[in-house]
C-alpha cells in the first residue's frame, strides 16, 4: 500500500503549523505500519487532546480522539475489549506526562500490548505555549515568562521504572531510526513507549530562540548520541532502545486466568 492509502486524504492538509514535528512522526508511523503490513481494519488508534492528538483524525484506522490525558485509559479498554487488535496511542508530552501521568505509569505496570508514542515537543502546543513537565529548566513559556524552575521528567526513566517492557527514544531528525523504532514498538508484545523529541517551532521554538523548524532539527542532529556513547554533557539526547524484554502480556494473562477458572467448569 502507498503511504497515502493510510491517510484520510479528504481531511488533509492537516492543521499542524509549517514545520511541526508531529507531521514527521505521522510520516514515520505510517511507514512503520506499512512495513509491518498491518491491515487497516486491525489497527485502533487512540489519542487524547493536543496538537499531537489530532494525528488520529488523519489516519485511516479505527480512530478515537478522546480526552486530554486519558488516551491510555481508553486504549486499555479498547484492547481488553478485543485483544486481537493492535492499539497505537500517539500522545503529546503534556497529554502523556502532565494530566495523563497516572494512566501512563499504570499502563506501563500492566504491560498490556499498547504502543505509546510520546511526541515530546517540550511544550503545550495546542493551548499556545505553556511549559510542560518535559520542558527543560530555565526555558521560557507563556506561563513561565521568567523561565521555568520545574525539573522535567525523563520519560525513559519513568516508563522503565513503572514497568514498560519496551522503551526507546529518538528524534524527528532521525527518521530512518524512527521508523525502525516505531516498528519495533508496535511489534513488541507488551507495553511499548517510544519517546520522540519533536519540534514545535510556533511556540517552543519562538519562545526559546531555537529558531525555525530547520534549526530545531539541526539541534536534534547535533545533540543526539547513541545510548552509552554520550559524554553526559547537559542537553545531550541519548537515542536508541533502552528496554526490550518480553514479559507476560496483560491480555494473555487474563486469558490464562479465564482458562484456569473455566477449567473446573468446562
Amino acid at each position, binding site marked *: 500500500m502507498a503511504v497515502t492509502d493510510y491517510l484520510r486524504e479528504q481531511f488533509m492538509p492537516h*492543521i*499542524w*503549523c*509549517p514545520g511541526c514535528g508531529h507531521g514527521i512522526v505521522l510520516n514515520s508511523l505510517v511507514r512503520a505500519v506499512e512495513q509491518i503490513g498491518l491491515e487497516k481494519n486491525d489497527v485502533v488508534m487512540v489519542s487524547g487532546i493536543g*496538537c499531537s492528538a489530532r494525528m488520529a483524525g488523519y489516519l485511516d484506522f479505527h480512530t478515537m480522539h478522546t480526552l486530554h490525558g486519558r488516551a491510555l485509559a481508553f486504549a486499555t479498554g479498547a484492547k481488553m475489549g478485543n485483544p486481537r487488535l493492535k492499539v497505537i496511542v500517539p500522545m503529546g508530552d503534556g497529554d502523556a506526562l502532565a494530566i495523563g501521568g497516572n494512566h501512563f505509569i499504570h499502563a506501563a505496570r500492566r504491560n498490556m500490548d499498547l504502543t505509546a508514542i510520546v511526541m515530546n515537543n517540550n511544550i503545550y502546543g*495546542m493551548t499556545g505555549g505553556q511549559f510542560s513537565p518535559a520542558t527543560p529548566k530555565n526555558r521560557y513559556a507563556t506561563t513561565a515568562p521568567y523561565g521555568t524552575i520545574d525539573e522535567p521528567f525523563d520519560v525513559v526513566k519513568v516508563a522503565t521504572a513503572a514497568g514498560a517492557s519496551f522503551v526507546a527514544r529518538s528524534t524527528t531528525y532521525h527518521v530512518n531510526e524512527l521508523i525502525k523504532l516505531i516498528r519495533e514498538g508496535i511489534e513488541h508484545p507488551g507495553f511499548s513507549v517510544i519517546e520522540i523529541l519533536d519540534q514545535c517551532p*510556533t511556540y517552543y521554538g519562538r519562545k526559546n530562540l531555537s529558531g525555525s523548524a530547520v534549526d530545531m532539527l539541526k539541534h536534534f542532529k547535533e545533540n543526539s548520541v547513541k545510548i552509552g556513547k554520550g559524554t553526559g554533557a547537559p542537553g545531550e539526547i541519548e537515542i536508541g532502545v533502552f528496554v526490550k524484554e518480553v514479559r507476560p502480556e496483560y491480555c494473555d494473562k487474563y486469558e490464562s486466568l479465564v482458562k484456569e477458572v473455566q477449567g473446573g467448569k468446562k
Partner: protein
Amino acid sequence: MKYKFILSGTGGQGAITAGLLLGEATATYGNLFAVQTQSYGPEARGGAARTDVIISSSKIHYPKVMYPDVLVCLSQEAYNKYIKMATPGGLVIYDSHNVKNVKIKDYKMLGLDMFGACMSEFNSVQMINICMLGVLSEIVELIDPETIRMVIRNRFKPSLIDINLRALDMGINLVRELGEEKVSKLKLQ
C-alpha cells in the same frame, strides 16, 4: 458615530494585532469606545484569521461585527472566506498583491499594494498590518493617526518604534497618493 471593522488575513500577517492596536488607540488615547474580538480556532494557526473592531462615540453592546463598514483582507484565503460579509455600500480594502481574485459587487473596493510597499521599503512584509492601519486612519475620520502613533510608542520595543511609525505613514501615503477626489468617495466620517 459608530464604525465596524473586520480585519482579516492569514495567521502571521498580524491582522489581529492590528485590531488590538486600533482598539487601544481609540479607547485609550482617542476618548472613544472601542471593542475588539477575534476568531480563534485550532485552524487560526494556519488558516484565515479575523478580528472584529467596533469604535463608537457611545457604549458598545453587541461586540461582534455582522455588517462591517470596512472589511480588510490581507490575503486571498481571508478574502475568500470573509468577502461574503461585505455589506452593500460598505468598503472593502484588500492587498492588491496578495488578493488577485476579486469580484465586483455593490460595495466599494479599494485595492492597495501594501505588500509591495512594505517589500520595497523594508524588504519584509512584517509591517503590512501597521501599514494597513495607516490606510484605515486616512480613510476613517474617527481614527486619529496620532493615537495610533501613541500606541506604537507605548507597545513596541524601542528598537521597533521607528520602523512601525514609518509603516504607518506609508499606509497614510498610499491613500493620499490616490488623490483627494478618489479618497473623498471612500472616506467614512
